[in-house]
């Protein structure tokens, strides 16, 4: 089709698609050419005189029954492929997907958390979807799968990746300001590489950064200098910014106290030109220190 | 407008009174049933009684009995519509929450 068929479902879906498209195309071409033919054949300019035909029961029956049959065919093949897509095999690896405004977090059974979905090639994976705030929808076009993440309940998806590489993940349920930026990647890697990552990467990285990721901060703030929904973290420490405090503008230099205050009470000082949408996310004092520390060193 | 346009029906005040007595009696009955605590069917029974009461109001107080067929058909369609949307919604929630039902 137009994009890779990178999972087991992709094949079913594409076959179904083409069957229905072909039927539809035949119908469309038939309808259109009949229309054009009749316009020319019975055109008044050619002196056509109308004969008062009232209708025909046989024809009515034909063009009721044939479409009924056609749509039933479509229904059945759609339902069959649907059932395959929804039936999770017994042996699967489970990954939790936590959606929040506006980032994805993937949690593995061994406690590992990641902002990219890493999966081994050829192994079935089940995703347990949940949302921390509003509706989101988890969508991997290359895998042809999608399901909403609904706050207050759990939904699921499953797939077997069949092509190595990295594919886009989108949020396809409108979830507010950062909806179009709520992207991630699924990385399909050879099983060995995956196992290395899965078993070996527990302790890597800096604790503060990891927290920024887990708490969803990086859904709105980048670490590479580009502004997103909120200001970037890169070089934030010591930056001079204009903030609005209780309706009044003032200019301050960012220091540790300011950072902590902004995390604990996001509404207190709002950086000018950014929307007041940051939620209060619970952090322990120890976590707060770690975050502040890592922000201080993000240059 | 003419006399003929006025539908004539022979309902008397006495009939209305009778209907009212039945309605009050049914109210008493439904409270009594609720008190008896026949849990499994209690809800069904009270909805059933309520439906009988609603029917009485419709037929007598609202003169449905004397209305032309077309109005009854229309009412039927409205009620059918309501039942169908309830039914179809339950095709979702029944199977989605099925597990919770006995909690």
């Amino acid at each position: 089709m137009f994009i890779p068929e990178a999972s087991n479902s992709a094949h079913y879906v594409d076959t179904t698609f083409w069957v229905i498209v072909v039927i539809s195309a035949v119908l469309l071409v038939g309808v259109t050419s009949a229309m054009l033919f009749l316009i020319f054949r019975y055109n008044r300019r050619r002196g056509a005189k109308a004969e008062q035909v009232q209708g025909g029961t046989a024809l009515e029956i034909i063009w009721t029954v044939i479409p009924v049959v056609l749509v039933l065919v479509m229904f059945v093949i759609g339902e069959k492929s649907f059932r395959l897509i929804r039936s999770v095999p017994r042996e699967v690896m489970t990954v939790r997907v936590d959606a929040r405004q506006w980032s994805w977090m993937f949690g593995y059974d061994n406690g590992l958390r990641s902002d990219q979905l890493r999966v081994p090639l050829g192994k079935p994976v089940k995703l347990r979807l949940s949302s921390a705030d509003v509706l989101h929808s988890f969508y991997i076009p290359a895998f042809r799968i999608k399901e909403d993440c609904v706050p207050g309940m759990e939904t699921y998806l499953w797939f077997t990746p069949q092509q190595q590489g990295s594919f886009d993940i989108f949020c396809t349920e409108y979830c507010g300001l950062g909806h179009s930026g709520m992207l991630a990647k699924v990385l399909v890697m050879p099983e060995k590489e995956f196992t290395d990552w899965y078993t070996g990467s527990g302790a890597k990285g800096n604790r503060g950064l990891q927290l920024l990721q887990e708490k969803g901060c990086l859904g709105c703030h980048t670490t590479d200098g580009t502004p997103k929904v909120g200001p970037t973290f890169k070089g934030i420490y010591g930056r001079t910014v204009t903030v609005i405090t209780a309706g009044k503008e003032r200019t301050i230099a960012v220091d540790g106290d300011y950072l902590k205050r902004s995390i604990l009470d996001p509404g207190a000082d709002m950086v000018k030109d950014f929307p007041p949408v940051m939620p209060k996310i619970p952090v322990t004092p120890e976590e707060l220190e770690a975050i502040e520390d890592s922000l201080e060193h993000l240059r | 407008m003419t006399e003929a346009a006025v539908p004539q029906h022979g309902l008397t005040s006495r009939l209305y009174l009778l209907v009212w007595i039945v309605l009050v009696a049914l109210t008493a009955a439904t409270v009594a049933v609720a008190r008896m605590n026949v849990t499994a069917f209690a809800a069904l029974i009270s909805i059933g009684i309520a439906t009988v009461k609603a029917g009485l109001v419709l037929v007598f107080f609202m003169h449905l009995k004397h209305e032309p067929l077309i109005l009854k058909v229309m009412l039927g369609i409205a009620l059918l519509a309501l039942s169908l949307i309830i039914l179809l919604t339950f095709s979702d929630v029944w199977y989605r929450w099925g597990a919770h039902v006995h909690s």
Partner: protein
Amino acid sequence: MHKGEGSVDERHLDYAGAKMGMWIFLFTEILFFGGLFLLYSVYRMKYLAEFHSSAAELSVVLGTANTVILLTSSLFMALSIAFLRKGRRGLSLLFQLITIGLGLFFLVNKYFEWAEHIRQGIYPDSPVLLDMARGKIIFFSLYYVMTGLHGLHVLIGVTIIAVMAAFTRNETIGPLDFVKLENTGLYWHFVDIVWIYLFPLFYLIT
């Protein structure tokens, strides 16, 4: 709104048409309340136990009293139409006033019921309510909205009957032209029917 202008025949009265219009309006009301009844039944299925324990907090006595009040008002409404048609204008007027009185009585009872819950701190978004089980929050949300909307309908009904009473007095409506009163009656009975269902759903499912 102004009176229809122009020829007489514009004001030609079509009784069956006017009543059909009213009935169709009632169908929309059925579907309007229907949405709420749907929500009720869905959430009751999900939170069966909480619905039962919450219902126990409502006063069956007040609920029953209100049911009887509304049923009685319906009786008087029906009677007032019958008497108007027989030309007994005075009696019809009297019954309309009784209907209004009963409607107001219903609302007063409702007021005391609500006031009692609010006194206990149970009202939408109240700290007390938010502390309770989720099924209870939903139950009381439904309770307030459904009885509230029903109460609003009672209030509207009372107002319309008051207008009709004025019409009866100044002979705008009479034995030959009573469709307005009849339609008012249809509305009032419909409001009664809604209560007939609300009563067991909220008061009797303990």
